[in-house]
């Protein structure tokens, strides 16, 4: 019993040490007097939640919305342990996490990006899988220049990577055990720990290929069409573009009015429009 408690305390400590500024400034709206909401979790959702928070605080000057990173799993753990009011996740909940209430706030498509000078404009999902698994190793095989492909991927545990594995690396004929049937990435693939880092490498290396959130593509890299379908907003929303995921807000049990109001704002027309302006696709 006390061992279990100790382990739990240790978990919380781990969380603390993870994202240094993560728990300390935690201002709960449950506490009397303080008018703040704390949101924590996925670093993919974080910039968008920060934008929402900015707009929300502008409209409600008395309320402080505190947005922190840490990662999807950390966010789920935090909201479960009530160390934050709203969690953010860029992955769907696992079975043992289903006690939480999840509120989808936007779709995020993942696009495969290449250097702007790369003549390749389209890949099939099968080709993409072969490239990222290291079976296709030269751009020549895809109609490009005679260059060895530099594969760039994300670190194990990243939501973007999980989503990419699920949609591209796994054979969708075997939906049952998706995660386990997914093909491993090429062993010599570069691993970076953020969308931005992947984009920087691809922008600098004409032989590189990587994947990032659609909202973060800029004019130094080009997003490829998949199976001939470009990652346009319409294709993402109607589900024809093959790689997209939901961004979730998570709550545990009853929540205070401030947090509820903030979530309502995220789902309101102006909130949704703000997310769309940042490159995501609206849920409503």
């Amino acid at each position, binding site marked *: 019993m006390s061992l279990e408690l100790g382990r739990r305390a240790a978990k919380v400590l*781990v969380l603390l040490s993870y994202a240094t500024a993560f728990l300390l400034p935690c201002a709960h709206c449950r506490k009397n007097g303080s008018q703040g909401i704390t949101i924590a979790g996925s670093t993919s959702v974080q910039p968008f939640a920060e934008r929402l928070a900015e707009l929300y605080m502008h409209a409600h000057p008395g309320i402080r919305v505190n947005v922190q*990173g840490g990662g999807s799993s*950390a966010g789920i753990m935090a909201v479960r342990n009530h160390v934050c009011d709203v969690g953010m996740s860029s992955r769907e909940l696992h079975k043992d996490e289903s006690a939480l209430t999840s509120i989808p706030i936007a779709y995020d498509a993942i696009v495969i990006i290449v250097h702007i000078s790369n003549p390749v404009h389209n890949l099939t999902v099968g080709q993409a899988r072969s490239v990222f698994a290291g079976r296709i190793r030269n751009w020549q095989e895809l109609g490009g220049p005679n260059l060895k492909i530099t594969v760039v991927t994300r670190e194990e545990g*990243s939501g973007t990577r*999980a989503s990419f594995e699920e949609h591209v690396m796994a054979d969708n004929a075997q939906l049952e055990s998706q995660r386990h049937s997914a093909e491993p990435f090429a062993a010599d693939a570069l691993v970076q720990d953020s969308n931005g880092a992947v984009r920087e*490498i691809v922008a600098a290396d004409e032989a590189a290929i990587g994947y990032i959130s659609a909202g973060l593509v800029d004019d130094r890299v080009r997003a490829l069409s998949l199976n001939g379908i470009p990652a346009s907003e319409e294709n993402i929303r109607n589900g024809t573009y093959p790689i997209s995921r939901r961004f979730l807000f998570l709550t545990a049990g009853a929540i205070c009015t401030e947090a509820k109001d903030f979530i309502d704002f995220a789902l309101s027309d102006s909130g949704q429009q703000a997310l769309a302006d940042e490159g995501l696709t609206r849920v409503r």
Partner: protein
Amino acid sequence: MTYRHKRLGLIVEKSVQTTLLLIAFAAVVVIFLIAVFIFWEGTPLLIKTGVWQFVASNRWEPTRGHYGILPMIVGSLEVTFIAVLVGAIFGLACAIFLAEFAPYWCVRIIKPLIELLAGIPSVVYGFMGVVVLVPLIRRALGGPGFSVLAASTILGLMVLPTIIAISLDAIRSVPSSYREGSLALGATRWQTVYRVVLPSARSGIVAAFILGMGRAVGETMAVIMVAGNALTLPTSLLQPVRTLTSNIALEMGYAAGDHQAALFATGMVLFVIIAILNTLALLLARRR
């Protein structure tokens, strides 16, 4: 009167002593707690997968239950070894110059600059690596640029201050009578340095290399930025590589459950490696 003063002085003396003792112990206790915490978190996973499997398997897919850190151990050792080699060559040369040949004004200029090198944050080294070194390697030598070579060059630069400072002290602490004796026998200055001074300073110089090694093994940020972090056993200097520290820092953000425990176990391995290096350094520095 004098008696009371004496007593008061004694009390102050005692309390200062005790306070300092407690503070000194606090630092030790913190290290002890960190060690306990890492081992507490990591051991269950090590027992589950088996220590041998953990350190000797090259399959690292923590979200699918495969925990093998061999590529990272090899990567860490390879990058560190080459970095210390680079650092040792330049560092020792610099220390010899500063101790034996440089005029005083020159030492006055170079020494503070080298100390400044130690104060540059590692992220700056990493950034320079990404912006300058990686594209250079990619263009000149091929491959992705993010490589063992890039990581060990940057690390080599970063361990320079450690190696220079400690080996400089070692060389300076060789009694000048040794030099005088050698010169009196007709040896040139260089012969004196490498036949008499360096052998006498050997233990200190080796300790400098090992402490540099400890710094290189532990460095994280700059390495993550330039090493590419791929999961292969690196066979060429131009291949990307992942070190133990990068593995922890890269994946801790999203890790949960066994994955998180595996990162702590990675930390245990790192802890053991660094403990061995520091012990070696202590033993060698003590042997005169």
